C-alpha cells in the first residue's frame, strides 16, 4: 500500500518554476514570420478558413504578413475574432486550421497558422485597437459573464454604438482565459492585457462580483436593458460519485488551475508528490502537465477508455507524455483510499469494451497518491431558475444564438452544442452581437 507521501510547497526553486512556466511556443521573430508566411499557398476556398470556428480569412492575413503589414493581418483576424491573440495561443490548431492545411495533408508540415496569428496580433496589440465606435444608438445591452463569449459580444455591440454593461461573478474579467487556460499558454498576464485591449473600444462598463443568482435577476435585466447576452460558462464540476470525495487531497482540477493562474508566487502552491489525474480532456492534460512543472515526482492520468477516445488531441497527449506524465488507459476510479482524513491512494478497476459498452472487468489494482485531481468535465447549472428552455442540459439557442426569450441571447459553454473551445465561444459572442444589433436597429 501507499508509502507516506507529502503535499508541500516550494518543491522547486523560483528560477526553476519561472523556466518551467515560460511560453510553451516561443513567438516567431519577424523574419521567421516572413519565411513561414511564404509557405502559405493562398488556397482557393481555403480549407483552413473553413475549419476555423470563427472563419478567419487565414490566407489573406498570412499574405498580409508576407507583404510586410502585420497590423493589417491582425485587423483581418480581429474582424472575425477580437480575441485572436488568445486564440492564437490556445486554439487546438492541430485539430482545426492546421489539420486541414494542404501542406499538412501533403507533407505533414502545416503552415504554422497559430504562430503566424500570434505574430500578427502581438505586433498589433502593442498599439491601440483599430476599431472606433459607431455613433451612440442610445440602446443598452447587458452582457453577463466577461469570458471569451461575453467579451466578443460586448466588443461587437460597442462597435455598433450600443452601450454595454458587462457583469462578472469574479473580481477579474477574462473568464477561462484568466482562470482556466494553462499558465504556459498565456504568459505575461496576457489574458488581462487582452481584456484591456478589447475594452479599449470604449462604451463598455464592467461590474465585477455580480452574477445571475448573485445580485442579478434575468427578469430585472430584461427590464433594465434593451437586450441581454448570457455568457455564463459552466458553474458545476462533475463528481466521481465515490465515497470520501471531500477528503483532503481530492481536488477539483478547475479550481486548482484557477488558483495557479492567480498565484503571484508559484512556489507557494501546495504540490503533491504522487499525483493522479482522472479524466481525458484538456483540463486533465493541463493539470497533469502543470503538476509536473510544479515539481510533482510522478503524475499519472487515468482514463477509462483508450487514448484514441480522449477529448484531448493526440498533440496534447504528446505534450503530456513529453513532460513525463504517464497516461493509463482503460482505468476507472473505484475507491478512494483514505488514511485519517487524507487521501493516500486510489483503487482502480480495469475497464474493457463489451461491444460498444464500456464495462468494468473486476480486475483492480491500487495506486498510491497524495493528490487526486478530478478532471471529468464541468456542467451547466441553471441559474435562471427555469426561465430559459434547455437542450441537453444547456441553454437552447437558435442559429443566431437567441434563446427562448425574445430579448435574451446566449453563447459559449453554457449553450447547447457549443464545442467548449475559446474560439467557439468567441464565434457565439460575435454572432449574438450581430443578431442583437439587427434586433435593436430593426
Amino acid at each position, binding site marked *: 500500500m501507499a508509502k507516506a507521501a507529502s503535499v508541500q510547497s516550494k518543491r522547486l526553486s523560483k528560477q526553476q518554476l519561472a523556466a518551467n512556466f515560460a511560453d510553451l511556443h516561443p513567438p516567431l521573430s519577424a*523574419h521567421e514570420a*516572413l*519565411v513561414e*508566411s*511564404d509557405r502559405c*499557398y*493562398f*488556397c*482557393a*476556398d*481555403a*480549407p483552413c478558413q473553413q475549419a476555423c470556428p470563427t472563419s478567419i480569412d487565414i490566407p489573406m492575413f498570412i499574405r498580409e504578413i*508576407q507583404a510586410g503589414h502585420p497590423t493589417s493581418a491582425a485587423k483581418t483576424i480581429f474582424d472575425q475574432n477580437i480575441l485572436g491573440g488568445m486564440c492564437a495561443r490556445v486554439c487546438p490548431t492541430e485539430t482545426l486550421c492546421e489539420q486541414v492545411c*494542404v*501542406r499538412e*495533408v*501533403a507533407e505533414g508540415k502545416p503552415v504554422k497558422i497559430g504562430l503566424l496569428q500570434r505574430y500578427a496580433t502581438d505586433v498589433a496589440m502593442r498599439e491601440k485597437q483599430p476599431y472606433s465606435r459607431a455613433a451612440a444608438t442610445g440602446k443598452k445591452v447587458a452582457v453577463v459573464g466577461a469570458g471569451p463569449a461575453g467579451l466578443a459580444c460586448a466588443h461587437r455591440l460597442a462597435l455598433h454604438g450600443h452601450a454595454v454593461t458587462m457583469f462578472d461573478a469574479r473580481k477579474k474579467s477574462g473568464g477561462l482565459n484568466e482562470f482556466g487556460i494553462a499558465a504556459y499558454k498565456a504568459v505575461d498576464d496576457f489574458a488581462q492585457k487582452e481584456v484591456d485591449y478589447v475594452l479599449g473600444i470604449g462604451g463598455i462598463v464592467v461590474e465585477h462580483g455580480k452574477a445571475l443568482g448573485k445580485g442579478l435577476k434575468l427578469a430585472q435585466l430584461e427590464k433594465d436593458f434593451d437586450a441581454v447576452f448570457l455568457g455564463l460558462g459552466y458553474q458545476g464540476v462533475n463528481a466521481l460519485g465515490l465515497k470520501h470525495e471531500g477528503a483532503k487531497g481530492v481536488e477539483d482540477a478547475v479550481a486548482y488551475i484557477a488558483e495557479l493562474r492567480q498565484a503571484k508566487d508559484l512556489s507557494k502552491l501546495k504540490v503533491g508528490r504522487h499525483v493522479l489525474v482522472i479524466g481525458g480532456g484538456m483540463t486533465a492534460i493541463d493539470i497533469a502537465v502543470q503538476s509536473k512543472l510544479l515539481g510533482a515526482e510522478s503524475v499519472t492520468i487515468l482514463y477509462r477508455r483508450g487514448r484514441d477516445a480522449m477529448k484531448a488531441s493526440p498533440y496534447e497527449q504528446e505534450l503530456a507524455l513529453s513532460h513525463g506524465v504517464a497516461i493509463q488507459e482503460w482505468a476507472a476510479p473505484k475507491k478512494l483510499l483514505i488514511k485519517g482524513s487524507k487521501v493516500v491512494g486510489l483503487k482502480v478497476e480495469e475497464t474493457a469494451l463489451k461491444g460498444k459498452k464500456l464495462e468494468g472487468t473486476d480486475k483492480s489494482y491500487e495506486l498510491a497518491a497524495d493528490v487526486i485531481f478530478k478532471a471529468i468535465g464541468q456542467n451547466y447549472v441553471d441559474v435562471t431558475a427555469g426561465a430559459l428552455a434547455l437542450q441537453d442540459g444547456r441553454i437552447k439557442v437558435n442559429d443566431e444564438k437567441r434563446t427562448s426569450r425574445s430579448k435574451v441571447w446566449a453563447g459559449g459553454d453554457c449553450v447547447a452544442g457549443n464545442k467548449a473551445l475559446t474560439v467557439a465561444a468567441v464565434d457565439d459572442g460575435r454572432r449574438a452581437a450581430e443578431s442583437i444589433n439587427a434586433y435593436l436597429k430593426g
Partner: protein
Amino acid sequence: MADLRSNFVGIKSPNPFWLASAPPTDKEYNVVRAFKAGWGGVVWKTLGEEGPPVVNVNGPRYGAIHGADRRLLGLNNIELITDRPLEINLQEIKKVKREWKDRALVVSLMVPCEEEPWKKILKRVEETEADGVELNFGCPHGMSERGMGAAVGQVPEYIEMVARWCKQHSRMPVIVKLTPNITDIRKPARAALKGGADAVSLINTINSITHVDLDSFSPMPSIDGKGSHGGYCGPAVKPIALSMVSEIARDAETRGLPISAIGGITTWRDAAEFIAMSAGTAQVCTAAMTYGFRIVEEMKAGLARWMDEKCYATIEDFRGRAVPNVTDWQYLNLNYVAKAKIDQDACIKCGRCYAACEDTSHQAIMKEKDGKRHFEVMDDECVACNLCVEVCPVEGCITMEPMKKGAVDPRTSRKVGDYANWTTHPNNPMRKQAAE
C-alpha cells in the same frame, strides 16, 4: 568523365566558367582566390585610360530584390569601372597571368570613343600577355553619361568603329560586350561582327531601380536621399539574357559568331542552357558575389555529371543544340493540341490552379466533384495555356498531355491534324499559299 575544357576564340580555359568583369575581378587578391577555387577564367574588371582613376560613390552601391528567405533574386549596382590606378592593374594582370598560365585572363576596357586612347591602352594590355580584351560597351550607369559604356553600345556605328580600331591595333582576340538596354540586340551584334570582333559577350546589366523608399521617396540604393538607375543582374535577368543570346545565335548575319554568355548564371544548369543556346563560355558574377567563389565546384561537377549522363564528351557535343528549336511564333505548329492533366494522387487540393483558371483564364478547372473538394481539368474548355502548371506548387502534378493526331479536340470539335502554322492559316490575311 566529361571534358569541360573550353577554347573560346583561341582563349583556352580548363572549364567554361569565367568570372565576369565586375568587383570580383578587380584585383590580384580576388582573382587568385578565384583561380584557387577553380574558376576557368576571369574578365578583369574594366580598365579606363591613364590618369586619375574614376571615383565611386561613398554610400551604398548595391540594391537587391529578395525572396521570402532573403534569397537574392536580382542585384542592382551603381559602381563604375575600376577605381584603382591603371599601372597597378596592369602589373597585377601580368603577374597573375604568368602564375596561372592555364587560366583564361581577359581584360575589360573602356576608354573614350577616340582612336588614340584605344590604341594606347591596347598596347599596354598586350604587354601583360593577357589572353584577350573585352570592350565594355554595356555599362548602363555613370560612364554612359560620359559618352562611354552603354552610350557606345547603343550606337551600332560606334561599336563597329571601335571594334575595327581594336582589331587594327592589337593581335589579341576582341570580345564586344553588349548592352541589353536597346530595342534589337541583333543590331549591335552585327556591328561588332562587321567591325571584325572575334566574339560578343552578353548581356551587360539592365537599367533598373530596385525600389523606392516609401518614407523618404528616394530610389534605392539611396545616396543622401537621391538615387540613380543602376545595372540589374542576377537570377531574375537570366530569361532576358537567354532570349538575347538566341537572337544572335539564329540571326542570318551573326549566326556562328562566338558568344560568351552572361546573365544570371547561378548553377550548372543555367550554364548548360546558355551553352545549348550556342554560348562558348559562361560568365558569372552575381552568384559568386552572393555565395563566394566555392560555387564553381557545384557548377563544374553538375555540368560534368549531366554531360556524362547524356554521353556528351565535350562542350562542343551539345553546344548550340537548342538554337534550331528557337523559331518565330508564326512557324509554331497550330495543330499541336495539348490538354492539362491533374494527377489526382499528387494533387494536394490547394486550388491555385482553379483560382488562376477561373479568375484569369479559361474557366477550365472544376473545384468540386460529388460534393467534395476536387480539382479536374475540363478538356472541352482547356486551351492548354499552361498557367495551371506554372502556379501549381507541386512539381509534376499538372502536366500537358499532347493529343494524338486524328483525335477530336473536345473544345473545338476539330480533329488534330498535321503540322500547320499561321502563315497558311485561313484567318491570316497575309497567308501564303503553301507552308514553309
